[in-house]
């Protein structure tokens, strides 16, 4: 009985310690890019305060950088990691710039940056689909 219990505890601990898969990390990336897009649209409609918007964009920017740093260790073979890296770097740079533009209250430039982020999002989503297919 004790041995079985120990085995369960070890199994749970092993599962708990397992790092997130590439597919899960791609989901997080899409989630943060989506968040940045959503908060950006709301800010352009003047329905969210500047400080909240800037803080959320900062959160998205930092989260993307964090995820990117661990993603490439777990990418399945056959994914063009250079192209993905470039798309992710672009996305986080755009979100970082959006944060600055909120602080400067520069709405027209913000719109342009947001549209660029949507283009990045499409590319990242294609990569996410490929990673998910390969992970399965």
């Amino acid at each position, binding site marked *: 009985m004790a041995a079985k219990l120990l085995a369960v505890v070890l199994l*749970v601990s092993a599962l*708990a310690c397992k790092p997130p898969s590439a597919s899960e990390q791609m989901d997080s990336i899409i989630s943060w890019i*989506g968040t940045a897009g959503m*908060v950006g649209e709301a800010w352009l409609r003047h*329905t969210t305060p500047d400080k*909240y918007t800037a803080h959320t964009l900062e959160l998205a920017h930092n989260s993307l950088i964090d995820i990117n740093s661990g993603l490439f260790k777990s990418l399945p073979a056959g994914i063009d990691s250079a192209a993905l890296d470039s798309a992710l770097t672009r996305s986080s740079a755009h979100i970082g710039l959006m944060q600055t533009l909120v602080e400067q209250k520069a709405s027209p430039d913000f719109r342009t940056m947001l549209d660029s982020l949507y283009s990045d999002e499409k590319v990242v989503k294609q990569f996410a689909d490929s990673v998910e297919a390969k992970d399965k």
Partner: protein
Amino acid sequence: MKKILQLTLGIITSVGGFLEIGSVTTSVQAGAQFGYKLLWPIFFGTICLIFLIEMSGRLAAVSRHTIVDAMRERFGFPFFFVVLVGIAIVAFMVLVAELGGIGFALQILTGIGFPWWALPVSFIVWLLMWKGSFSLIENGASLLGLITISFVVAAIKLHPDWSGVASGLLPTMPQSDKARYGFLTVSILGATISPYLMYFYSSGAIEEKWDRSYIVMNRIIAGFGMFFGGFLAMAVLIAAALVFQPKGIQVDTFPQAALVMVTALPKWGFYLFALSMLFACFGAALEFSLAIAYFFAQGFGWNWSEDLEPSKDSRFAFVYTVIILLAAIPLMLGVDPVKVTMISMALTSATLPLAIVPFLFLMNDPIYLGKYRNGWLSNSIVSIVIVISFVLALISIPLQLIGG
């Protein structure tokens, strides 16, 4: 006429006081990740809660005992002490989460980080406890909490697919992310079937001097109040499913959750969310502080009543003073209230057997309830809750590790 007013107020306060950081966080996360698929734990948990709350009020009205009084008297102090330790630790964590929820709401409104709000918010909660009466705390906070009805408006304005909503009321298993699905199920049940609500409700019945003439009123308040409250939690999940899931947004942080009403109510959605969280968490922080103080005072046989001067129930006042002060510390240190919420909701599930098993015995004890003892339906529901609570107690910690 007085009873009709009390009844109306009882239902309104039950609705206004239903949502808090636990129910909102779990519902938003569930809707964002699994669409309508996790509506069933809210629905099922609400039905269980209706029965448990009705029983808590009936016990107080008939026996003039709170659950804690009766538990200590019936099972003795050593048993009560075990329950006290389990429940008090988790209730404390929930109080931290509620105070954090207020801080987060103020953070998104003002831009000042939530750790800075920990002390002022805790002080205001403590001051209201010290100076306020039971009816002020129960009715005042819950009436302000009626702003949470805006979640229902948002959900309806998003035009949900009602057949999908209906199918979400039946349990299904997702194709992937099963551990996460299980963890969120446990957390939703922990947020919905809250034993603290039972303790608070039975103590409130004693504070308001309920007697047997309140039995029908108690049944109506528990039934309608909790049903409409559960409906609010479902509205949060539906809105999150329609707003976040299509964009692939997984809600891990409070600032993300704040966008849940922005699509449906573009002009006011953000502020309605912030104010909903502010008032809902404020009401819940007051109720949890009171519930913990009631638990200690009733368990140790001290004087207790929120309507007494603190000098007349000094140990009761001392408990909530210390608890509120201690709860502010992790927040000042920057501990994330959303993480505390998710852990405490799963742990609430884990401690459910401690609260529910002795309750079943009490509700069948002729010494306390005479002819008002539980019938077969109430006993069946509590038995189901007990079986589920044991399963939840076993799986909540592993699911916390894997899926949380």
